[in-house]
């Protein structure tokens, strides 16, 4: 099953279909979507929208009923005019779509989904079908800022989608936290400031290689349970959201209880929007020492796969190498 092969390249002039498997952010902040669309159009992509991308469910939590959102996904996969699916936003809602998807149609029409956070359920579902996807980008969160997306985010997106080989992921520099609210026009209309220091922290140097899997850590125990995952031999990446209030000790304890973390090929931990990098690295180190003391694989913290921008766009499920001299890289070879 793993690692999955790289998807077909998605290049300028190709067509992206915006889908909303989760929260109805595009309904609430349509101008943010317009800015993101303009950024993608400027790169040469054609952007289209699924029928419920701008929708609002009766309970207000998502863009439509599970059947409506799943139908949007299936239509995008089946449509030969669509080259890749891009989520508008995440938040919640992906898990309830899984039983409504048709794996045979998706396998007959493989194409990458671009998403992050809650859409980890979709990434893992696709990986289980042997289909590669991209984790770390969304229309609203990553591409819709006033002033446009950060150039590092754009470069990471286009290099990943174009199946540049090898795909080498280096530190992207200082980071910007999300706006305090997209729904407060005064906050939303201010360009993001990169006032969070960048740079990585190697808790344990070394080299490890394997399929890259992971996601936002509070969701991973459910991902493990749903897909009966065994992370042995896996390069595991994870991060926390900007509103996570659980201590990292609890998060790692819960994940270690759900699956064996002693046999990973390596661990890549994203930066924490709520903590300074040295504090975050120390908390992660203490939690790993407490809950996975026997682990010997390389661990890097404050990586650029996180709920801040700019950010990497990573090939989910593909073979990857983590090396304290070379960073994180993907050979991206097929066959």
């Amino acid at each position, binding site marked *: 099953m793993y690692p999955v092969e790289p998807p077909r390249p998605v290049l300028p002039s190709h067509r992206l279909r915006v889908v909303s498997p989760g929260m109805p952010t595009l309904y*609430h902040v349509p101008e943010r979507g317009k800015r993101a669309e303009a950024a993608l159009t400027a790169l040469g992509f054609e952007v289209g929208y699924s029928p419920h991308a701008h929708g609002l469910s009766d*309970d*207000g939590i998502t863009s439509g009923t599970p059947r409506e959102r799943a139908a949007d996904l299936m239509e995008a996969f089946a449509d030969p005019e669509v080259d890749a699916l891009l989520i508008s936003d995440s938040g919640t809602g992906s898990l309830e779509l899984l039983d409504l998807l048709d794996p045979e149609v998706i396998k007959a029409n493989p194409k990458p989904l671009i998403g992050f956070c809650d859409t980890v359920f979709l990434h893992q579902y696709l990986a289980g079908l042997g289909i590669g996807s991209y984790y770390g980008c969304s229309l609203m969160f990553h591409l819709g800022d006033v002033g446009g997306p950060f150039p590092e985010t754009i470069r990471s997106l286009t290099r990943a989608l174009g199946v540049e080989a090898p795909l080498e992921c280096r530190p992207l520099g200082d980071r910007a936290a999300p706006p305090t609210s997209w*729904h407060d*026009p005064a906050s939303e209309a201010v360009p993001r400031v990169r006032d969070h220091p960048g740079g990585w922290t190697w808790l344990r140097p070394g080299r490890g290689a394997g399929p890259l899997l992971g996601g936002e850590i509070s969701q991973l125990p459910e991902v493990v349970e749903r897909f009966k995952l065994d992370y042995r031999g896996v390069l595991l990446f994870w991060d926390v959201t900007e509103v996570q209030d659980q201590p990292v000790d609890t998060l790692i304890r819960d994940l270690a209880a759900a699956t064996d973390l002693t046999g990973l090929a390596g661990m890549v931990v994203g930066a924490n929007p709520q903590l300074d990098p040295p504090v975050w690295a120390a908390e992660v180190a203490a939690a790993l020492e407490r809950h996975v003391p026997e682990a010997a694989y390389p661990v890097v913290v404050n990586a650029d796969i996180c709920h801040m921008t700019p950010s990497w766009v990573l090939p989910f499920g593909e073979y990857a190498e983590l090396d304290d001299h070379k960073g994180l890289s993907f050979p991206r070879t097929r066959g």
Partner: protein
Amino acid sequence: MTPEAIAEVFGSVLDIDDVLIDDSFFDLGGSSFSALTLVSKLKQASGRPVRLRDVVREPSPRGLADAIAALPPAES
């Protein structure tokens, strides 16, 4: 929608009685998450494209009534 009708919607979302037309949704215990449900209910009841920003700007039934009245009818 009248401020009184909006106050009733506040009460149904937050499961409380006797919401006054000058009460703030957020002071009553509303969160950004419950505000999503509030917006959807107000959109259905008013037929106007109410958005979360409207609640953030005008968190009371009185203020929201004016804000909603100024919105165009929602597209079907």
